[in-house]
């Protein structure tokens, strides 16, 4: 048996498109497209006309228009006879009836239309009957049925090891003569699993066929092509449209949360535009760890993304540029994890590659899909704060505890005897928290798409609108997006197409506020009917002196008032698209040229009124008239042009399948920054007036323009070979050149090789009934990472400095002259960071397709990590250099399992994934550890581990303090050591003569507490993370639930653990349990102003497990079926309710271990298509 259409493929591309299309239909994942079933086939009506064509071409025509593929036995159905045929709005059934004149019957099985001869056929006429008769032989009959018990016509029944066999008739019956006793019958049918059954002494064998594992038929994007999942050799995971939509997210990254093994995505909180952290298989470098995003073949690039300095990040702005991709438009997200999969992206691939494929048109009548979703977000968690009385009392206690403390002016607010005493005020904390929260903050998303096409052209267009309000005061995100794409088979050998996507997002941001607003002065009022704008200003006159911090040092800047007086808007517009042309001079060969562009502008506008100063805690008065109302405009445009040229060849020679591609790529990225502002004496009076005029005094205006650029060139070849879908080899070589590195270090070569072996196809695996498919894979390869500050190999001239000499005539003012400085420490031999990945894994399908299981071991060794390092300050440079610093190893396991079954009408699927990460720094430059605050990088430790002091409880008595101080000095912190202070452990000291030369510390106590005593306290890279998903369906209902979590990770938490001072921030109620002589067994040190004993140094007291388990989201849907749909004229109608972030369980002692701003969201939505 063969699948005709397959051999008739002219172009690999259209082949893949078709498989892809078929895949969507078979899995029914495209909700918008409805399910392919009998009724669909019956309802589909076709119109076409052919003259002097083969029957085969008529069938092809039907295939293309309906998405079905025909299955038939070549020597049963004559498809090569010529016909003239015309169909007018005719059903498939009728077409087939007329085409074959009733000699041929049909049945629809899954995505296939099975053709069979209508007349009974019980002889083995078509297959040579040459069986030997040495053994006792019998006739075996039986019936072959599909999983639903329906007869399966056209199934092949063969005697194993011979060419004797037959096929089943229209009722699924077969009869086979001369079957030897020891024979094994092989039952096969396309789309079904082949079954082998020993005959024994039976004469009747009925067989129920099982559908082949759907998962293995999935088409997976692998970069510059697609592949069936069963043919993968590398570590690639994919989620598809249906799963993505069920994640209820507005950005593509969040759609992956918890769904893909090896991929960790952080919770960005309620800020609709925040960038989540995405990490694939650990943290492989100290610098830029973000994966490469490739959207419809266009590698994304964001200016300044990998520049670590504050200025670049400020220019880059806070808005996540990926939020511009609407998850509704995505067909699939494919994650390439190991080098054999990512090597094709060479230089940019070492952090993994995320391929986003968006929806394209399909041949057929126009399909209209509409989706709408509306949700609300709320935060229900709160910090529990002390009372005002406690705020005062504890501050006094802290003051009394430190005799050296000289009260500042704000002492008067805490002093009961003072007329300024505020301790009797109302507690406004809750008002402020309420003001910081946005109740029922809406999130909404509406989309419409139309797709369709004919034989030569397919198209898809769509538009969408999304809006999200931050659940905290206050930002708002609006997104308008539209897309259009089309493909045109112009001639037999020429195909062209394009895709274009336009997105416009507007973000309104105000000075943020969140639940930590509770930590500010509790007695600061929020509203004042007599105050300016109805708000209470931050400043007050106290004892005749104006204080901008009118309620003490913890006076808040008034975010409500400031929001009214200040406007900041971000406006992003992104144009993303490509045009391609592909020629196929002969079968199997394609030559394709593509030009892609990604052009976006990110505009920030701000308008600030003078009066905002009234509500600033460090000002308290309006800005002066001369300062005017400010307006500023920043434009960051980012232009990314990619040109590619691809030659691909694929063919099959018997059982040898070969696929080869060669690709050349050229990418140039430019990003330009322009800033204009009116800084003084501006006549502007409102946001609507915003402008900067030519005529205004140049002195009052600012302008800045800056350009950056970088380039990348690459050549890549990939050869894929498989023998009979049993043995696979993939070899890839990529060579990349980058402008980021200096002469002689620009080019890097990144090879990879991978193999796979389908063991389950081997004879020795026969008879394992429970095993449906088993493939083992292994891969090795190198990839690169170039992401670091641009031109770090060069010493750039910093033109910022200004110096003044002479006199301008005004008092004190000189003449300002430009100056220049060299701030860099160029490292000329800087080059690629390379990641060598080894991957070993297997994919198994067992228990009659009910359980799929993948397990992988990976080892990613990063060499020459590009890292900005802190070098001795005495070198005197401004910008820390970038060097190929370190080696780091990440290794671990990844598991993914999905179990699918049903109990009666209840179908369910449970899937889980688990990734383990063991991160180790293997080598550092000069073995020199790097410490940044309490984060440390050191050989043989996990990267950025928590570095701090060890403690041994709290001093209880004066005697204990004296005993300690007689042995151990704590320079600078000894004077006031007292009961209630933390006991620090003397572990190590400065290197001594006895230590080896070049030692960084002496691993012996030295009687002194200092930086040398800090040690390993915990690790910040999770040891494992996991996701758990449940999919259920019952009749018209379906439900999805997702959970995710991380484990084996620690985090510093200072909440409720410090030696509190006073006269400043408000206190958590937890401090009721602090150390006092009356409460000696406490774990919180005593209250003491200014922390003279250094109790608050980060130590083991502060390190907590940050593991968590989160109910990430759920969705419960109802699919309307039958008459309602007909009445409404719809193909599909589904309504759902959904929720996100329903709960989190964690030992971490804060409102949320990931992000305290993560709201709980509930959504309702509807999807329909017609």
């Amino acid at each position, binding site marked *: 048996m063969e699948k005709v259409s397959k051999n008739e493929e002219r172009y690999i591309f259209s082949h893949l498109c078709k498989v892809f299309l078929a895949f969507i239909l078979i899995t029914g994942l495209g909700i918008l497209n409805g399910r392919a079933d009998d009724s669909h086939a019956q309802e589909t009506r076709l119109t076409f006309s052919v003259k002097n064509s083969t029957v085969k071409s008529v069938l092809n025509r039907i295939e293309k228009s309906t998405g079905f593929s025909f299955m038939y036995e070549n020597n049963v159905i004559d498809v090569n006879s010529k016909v003239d045929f015309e169909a007018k709005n005719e059903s498939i059934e009728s077409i087939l009836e007329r085409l074959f004149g009733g000699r041929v019957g049909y049945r629809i099985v899954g995505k296939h239309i099975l053709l069979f001869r209508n007349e009974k056929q019980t002889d083995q006429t078509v297959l040579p009957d040459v069986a030997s008769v040495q053994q006792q032989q019998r006739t075996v009959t039986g019936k072959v049925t599909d999983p639903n018990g329906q007869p399966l016509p056209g199934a092949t029944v063969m005697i194993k090891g011979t060419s004797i066999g037959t096929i089943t008739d229209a009722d699924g019956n077969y009869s086979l003569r001369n079957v030897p006793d020891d024979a094994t019958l092989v039952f096969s049918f396309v789309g079904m699993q082949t079954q082998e059954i020993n005959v024994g002494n039976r004469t009747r064998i009925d067989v129920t066929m099982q559908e082949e594992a759907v998962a293995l038929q999935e088409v997976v994007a692998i970069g510059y092509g697609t592949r069936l999942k069963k043919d993968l050799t590398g570590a690639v995971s994919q989620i598809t449209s249906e799963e993505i939509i069920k994640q209820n997210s507005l950005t593509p990254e969040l759609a992956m949360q918890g769904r893909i093994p090896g991929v960790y995505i952080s919770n960005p909180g309620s800020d609709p535009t925040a960038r989540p952290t995405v990490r694939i298989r650990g943290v492989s470098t100290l610098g830029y760890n973000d994966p490469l995003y490739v959207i419809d073949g266009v590698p994304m690039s964001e200016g300044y993304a990998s520049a670590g300095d504050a200025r670049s990040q400020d220019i880059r702005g806070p808005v996540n540029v990926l939020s511009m991709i609407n998850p509704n438009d995505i067909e699939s997200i494919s994650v390439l994890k190991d080098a054999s999969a990512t090597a094709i992206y060479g230089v940019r691939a070492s952090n993994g590659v995320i391929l986003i494929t968006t929806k394209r048109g399909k041949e057929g009548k126009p399909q209209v899909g509409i989706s709408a979703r509306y949700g609300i977000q709320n935060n229900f968690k709160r910090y529990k704060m002390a009372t005002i009385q406690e705020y005062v009392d504890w501050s006094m206690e802290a003051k009394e505890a430190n005799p050296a403390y*000289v009260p500042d002016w704000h002492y008067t607010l805490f002093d009961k005897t003072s007329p300024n005493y505020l301790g009797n005020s109302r507690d406004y904390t809750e008002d402020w928290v309420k003001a910081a929260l946005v109740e029922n903050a809406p999130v909404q998303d509406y989309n419409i798409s139309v797709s369709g096409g004919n034989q030569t052209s397919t198209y898809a267009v769509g538009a969408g609108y999304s809006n999200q309000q931050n659940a905290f005061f206050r930002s708002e995100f609006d997104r308008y997006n539209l897309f259009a794409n089309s493909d045109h088979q112009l001639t037999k050998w020429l195909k062209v197409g394009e895709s274009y996507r336009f997105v416009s997002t507007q973000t309104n941001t105000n000075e943020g506020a969140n639940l930590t607003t509770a930590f500010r002065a509790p007695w600061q009022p929020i509203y004042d009917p007599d105050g300016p704008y109805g708000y209470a200003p931050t400043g007050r006159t106290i004892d005749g002196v104006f204080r901008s911090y009118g309620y003490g040092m913890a006076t808040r800047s008034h975010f409500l008032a400031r929001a009214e007086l200040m406007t900041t808007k971000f406006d992003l517009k992104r144009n993303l698209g490509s045009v391609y042309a592909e020629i196929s001079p002969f079968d199997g060969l394609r030559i394709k040229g593509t030009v892609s562009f990604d052009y976006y502008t990110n505009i920030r506008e701000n308008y600030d009124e003078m009066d905002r100063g009234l509500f600033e805690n460090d000002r308290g008065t309006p800005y002066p008239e001369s300062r005017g109302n400010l307006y500023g405009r920043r434009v960051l445009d980012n232009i990314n042009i990619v040109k590619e040229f691809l030659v691909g060849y694929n063919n099959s020679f018997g059982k040898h399948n070969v696929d080869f591609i060669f690709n050349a790529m050229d990418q140039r990225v430019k990003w330009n920054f322009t800033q204009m502002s009116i800084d003084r004496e501006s006549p502007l009076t409102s946001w609507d007036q915003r402008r900067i005029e030519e005529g205004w005094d140049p002195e009052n205006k*600012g302008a800045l323009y800056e350009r950056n650029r970088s380039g990348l060139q690459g050549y890549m070849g990939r050869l894929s070979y498989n023998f009979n879908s049993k043995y696979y080899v993939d070899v890839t070589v990529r060579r990349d050149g980058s402008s980021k590195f200096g002469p002689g270090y620009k080019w890097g070569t990144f090879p990879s090789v991978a193999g796979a072996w389908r063991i389950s196809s081997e004879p020795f695996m026969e008879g394992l009934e429970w095993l449906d498919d088993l493939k083992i894979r292994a891969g090795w390869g190198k990839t690169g990472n170039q992401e670091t500050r641009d031109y770090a190999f060069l010493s*750039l001239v910093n033109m910022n400095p200004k110096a003044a000499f002479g006199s301008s005539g005004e008092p004190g003012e000189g003449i300002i002259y430009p*100056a220049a400085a060299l701030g860099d420490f160029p490292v000329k031999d800087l080059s690629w960071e390379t990641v060598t990945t080894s991957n070993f894994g297997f994919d198994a399908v067992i228990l009659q397709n009910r359980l799929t299981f993948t397990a992988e071991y990976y080892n990613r060794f990063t060499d020459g990590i590009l890292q900005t390092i802190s070098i001795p*300050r005495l070198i005197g440079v401004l910008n820390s250099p970038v060097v190929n610093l370190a080696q780091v190893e990440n290794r671990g396991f990844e598991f993914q399992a999905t179990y699918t079954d049903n109990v009666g009408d209840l179908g369910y699927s449970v899937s889980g994934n688990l990734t383990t990460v063991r991160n180790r720094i293997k080598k550092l430059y000069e073995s020199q550890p790097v410490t940044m605050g309490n984060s440390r990088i050191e050989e043989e430790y996990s990267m950025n581990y928590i570095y701090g002091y060890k403690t041994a409880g709290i001093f209880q008595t004066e005697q204990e303090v004296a005993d300690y101080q007689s042995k151990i000095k704590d320079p600078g912190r000894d004077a006031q050591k007292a009961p209630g202070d933390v006991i620090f452990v003397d572990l190590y000291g400065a290197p001594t003569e006895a230590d080896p030369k070049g030692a960084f510390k002496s691993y012996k106590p030295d009687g002194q507490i200092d930086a040398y005593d800090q040690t390993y306290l915990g690790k910040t890279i999770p040891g494992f993370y996991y996701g758990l998903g449940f999919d259920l369906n019952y009749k018209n209902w379906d439900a999805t639930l997702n959970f995710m979590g991380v484990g084996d990770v620690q985090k510093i938490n200072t909440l409720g653990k410090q030696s509190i001072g006073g006269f400043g921030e408000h206190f958590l109620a937890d401090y009721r349990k602090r150390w006092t002589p009356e409460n000696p067994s406490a774990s919180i040190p005593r209250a003491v102003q200014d922390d003279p004993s250094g109790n608050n140094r980060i130590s083991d007291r502060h390190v907590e497990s940050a593991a968590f388990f989160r109910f990430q989201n759920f969705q419960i849907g109802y699919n309307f079926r039958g008459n309602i749909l007909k009445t409404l004229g719809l193909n599909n109608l589904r309504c759902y309710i959904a929720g996100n972030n329903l709960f989190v369980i964690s030992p971490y002692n804060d409102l949320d271990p990931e992000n305290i701003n993560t709201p709980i969201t509930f959504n309702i939505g509807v999807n329909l298509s017609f």
Partner: protein
Amino acid sequence: MKNRKLLYYILFIFTLIQYSCSDDTVNLLPIGDTEATYFQNESQMEEGIRGIYQKLGFFYRFGGSQNDNTAPIWHLPSDDLTTPSTNALENFSGLNGSNWQVTMFYTYAYQLINRANYMLQKIEENADFAYKKQPELKNFHKGEALFLRAYMYMQLWNVFGTAPLVTERITKIADGYLPNSKDTELLDQAIEDLAEAAQLLPDSWSADMKGRVTKNSAYGLRGKCLVFRGSVKKATTDFTEAITDFNKINSASLAPKYSQNFDVNFENNQESLFEYQANSSPSDVNPFLDNDNFAVIGEIGAYYGFFTQKPSWIGNSYYTATASIKDAYNDGDFRRTYNIDLNPDVKLNVKKYIRNTAYAKGWGGQDYELSVNNPRILRYADVLLLKAEAIVRSNGSLSEAIGLINQIRERARNSGDEYSEVPADRNVNETDPQKVLEWIFEERRLELAFEEGHRWWDLRRRHIAGEIDLKSWDFQSLDPNFKFEDYNVNFPLPEQEVVENPNMNQNVGY
């Protein structure tokens, strides 16, 4: 027809390949100048030299918070100033290597040295072609780089004592793990460099360049370094050499009025040898931003808010004059009332630089006390007193030395609106050199109060020399934690710098 289409298409593809495979993509260079293409002519060399001067401004920055400026390093340790806030630089007891001011001071000093070092390198390398139009600039530039670097050496010695000596641009990280300097190595190098600078620098600059260092600056600073070294090493030759240097200073004189040294209208006057040229920024000054990263709003003024408690949130981190400096002046000494508000209820009593000042323009100006009034780093009055000290210490003519003190006192008498009898001249017939030395230090305290750390550096070197004992000194600290130990004459080196450098040791005691 079909073939033609195919031909077009193939042409298109090959055009694309041609376009794609240009090498330019990989060889892109940044837009803007690189070191390799810069320092090619006079104006670029000038900009490089100005870049060294610009770094001086970092020592006078505010930086946005009470802890974000280096002023406490030289103001607070002395017995002239104290602060009601707890500050380790004031009470010495909480001082350790994680002190941020210490780290900042160290960082800025070496950044300035690096700028001087690479400019010295560029002057050597590019001299042949970069000074074709104005050959004289080559020497001037070299002299300026040497001078500014030497000033940093001196300051590093004053603050840390043992900070490493960097005399060449470091281009390999491995070369950056230098050991501590020993003894007076830093001063030794400064003295050597200043001798060379004095040969190279011009006598004066044109009006539009006024404020750049001159021969006089170099002689003055060299003499100062010699006196400092001589006082701790007890080396008479240093003093005689210093006197020679001081004598080479020409055309400098005391300004007629004391106040003219702190008045914004009399910058770079006849008494001035070296000033930081504080200025408004080209656009609105933003005290939170520095001038290395932010061209037009980065601060290039001078912060005096620690005398005025500005901006308001610095809280208690203001500095107040101690009773002992108030009492040190004679009643009627103009300098007393000019420098100090004597009202005992006024905490913000230090008025030097505040009385006749002007603010940087823009929103960060007056509110933050960002002044355009130049801090006078080295002035002739300082030189005269150093010269007097050198004379006494080298057993020279006491009457000559006393005459120099009296020049200072005479000017003080003439500084008010009306002539004052106070302070009266010292007795020129005094024969006890020790007494004269005390007069000199007394005069230095009065004349140079609240300026540039003169008082603390003097106390420090005298303690090192064993002339005074600071352990029993009355520092007039408001802080009950106050405790001075011998090792406090050197401040701790930045902790991370020491811990990460196996060749560098922390200063003894920290």
